[in-house]
């Protein structure tokens, strides 16, 4: 397992996946409080925007948190799909998986090492985004409760992991990167459709993000433990399915 993990981690660094994840999450971590603060100013500069800006309420720390959550979830989801869709399928297609798996390297270790490496990249990226977001929110608004901010980012990481795990499953199911991408997008759409059902939506990533926003603002309202467990269950189920499918596959 350690050999597979070392290889995957080296791959994250050498193929610039780590760098891309870190840069994009950091960028939006930085930009989110800035955008929240200066959106009325920006609108003022647009011809006819002054009237609109008058009806926009002055930005608050809650706007910074909402902006942070919105930006990071959108780009994090995109990154999870783009970074993960070739992880297994490309190795099968190019033949590197065959080279590795004809050796005493277990298929479970092969898959779990990929999941761990991708998780580590998102962990570092989220930590950078969290630090940048916290600092700029402090500069432009006020200090966020540190514990709540940490919890928000922890839940955000779980949110990324749900989509990363589903993309890894898509990549395991397919032999081509394109097929993996289509399947992963299919999973995302399916999840979004399920979230549209109010009862189910509370138990999925939407519920998780609502709770994350509350925690960041120091509110203990509406804890979404159900959503947390369902998301963790989804991650575990996707990884288990990836391992089981991969163990039966011909490479």
């Amino acid at each position: 397992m350690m050999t597979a993990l070392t290889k995957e981690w080296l791959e994250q660094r050498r193929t610039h996946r780590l760098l891309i994840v870190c840069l994009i999450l950091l960028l939006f971590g930085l930009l989110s409080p800035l955008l929240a603060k200066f959106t009325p100013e920006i609108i003022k500069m647009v011809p006819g925007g002054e009237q609109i800006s008058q009806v926009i309420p002055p930005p608050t720390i809650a706007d910074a948190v909402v902006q942070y959550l919105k930006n990071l979830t959108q780009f994090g989801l995109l990154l999870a799909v783009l970074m993960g869709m070739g992880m297994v399928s490309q190795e099968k297609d190019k033949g590197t998986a065959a080279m590795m798996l004809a050796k005493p390297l277990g298929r479970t270790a092969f898959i779990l090492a990929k999941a761990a490496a991708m998780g580590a990249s998102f962990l570092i990226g989220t930590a950078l985004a969290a630090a940048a977001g916290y600092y700029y929110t402090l500069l432009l608004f006020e200090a966020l409760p540190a514990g709540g901010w940490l919890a928000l980012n922890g839940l955000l990481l779980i949110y990324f992991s749900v989509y990363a795990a589903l993309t890894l499953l898509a990549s395991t199911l397919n032999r081509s990167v394109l097929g993996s991408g289509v399947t992963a997008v299919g999973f995302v759409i399916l999840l979004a459709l399920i979230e549209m059902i109010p009862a189910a939506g509370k138990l999925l990533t939407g519920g998780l993000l609502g709770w994350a926003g509350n925690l960041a603002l120091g509110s203990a309202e509406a804890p979404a433990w159900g959503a947390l467990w369902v998301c963790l269950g989804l991650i575990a189920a996707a990884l288990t399915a990836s391992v089981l499918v991969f163990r039966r596959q011909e490479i």
Partner: protein
Amino acid sequence: MSAIRIEALTKSFGKFRALDGLSLTVEGGAVFGFLGPNGAGKTTTLRILTGLAHADSGGAWVEGLEVGKSAEISSRIGYLPEEPAFYPWMTGIETLDTMGQVHRIEKAERRRRVDEMLEMAGLTEAGKRRVGGYSRGMRQRLGLAQALIHRPQVLLLDEPASALDPAGRKDVLGMIEGLRGQCTVFMSTHILADVERICDTVAIIDRGKLVANARRADLIARYAIPMLALEADDVDRLNKLATEVSQMGWAHAVAIEGRRLTVTVKDLAAAQRELLAQAVAAGLVVTHYEQVKPSLEDVFLRIVENGKESRQL
């Protein structure tokens, strides 16, 4: 104990039967040529032996361990696929070191083995460069090096030299030849010259079935049809002679290539008695006459083209 034993192996892809009850045995220490035309089932057999593919029925054993039942097999084999693929972002040294780690070779020993393998593959200089920049020949040699990093007992090679230029082929075949006595080599190929050069035992597979399996010399002795060849300057008379010879009872087939007439014969003694006499009678001045030494290519073409002779010596 045989190094490889395959029994009644079958494998289908949809309606296509890639392996149709294949059985064969490879003795330990042999350099075994696994010959067959494209699509005969060679790669499928190798992929089953490595555990990358699963047979529909039948079984295979490597060093006495059953494929699919014992994880230990992957430590005993070295495998070079037809087109070895590497992580382009790794250097040659990192590639071999990673493969050594997978085989759980201790660090100091691994370092020694990586250096040894790079030297054997002629990649000492290129070892620090990323594999993405390697030529086809370099990748093939690196492929052989990674397959040997853990000193396997059985080396499985899938068309190891088929896509290489003459210089690359010479290098790779030289490396394989150097392994004689160190491990059992099971090499699939459709290039007969490669087998003639390095293999001592040969199996021929066609449409998923074994059609011949013997020591190379025995195979040639048993299957090769004797041939006589003569050369003369007068092409018109040579053509006329060819027509006459083709009607003789001892002639199997006649071919003319330039000023050379080749006759595959059913009755060698009769042909030896009559061919030269007929040439002289036809007014030809014979500049060269020989009994052609049969090659593995002749045997292969005869067996494969005639189809389904399922024989084992």
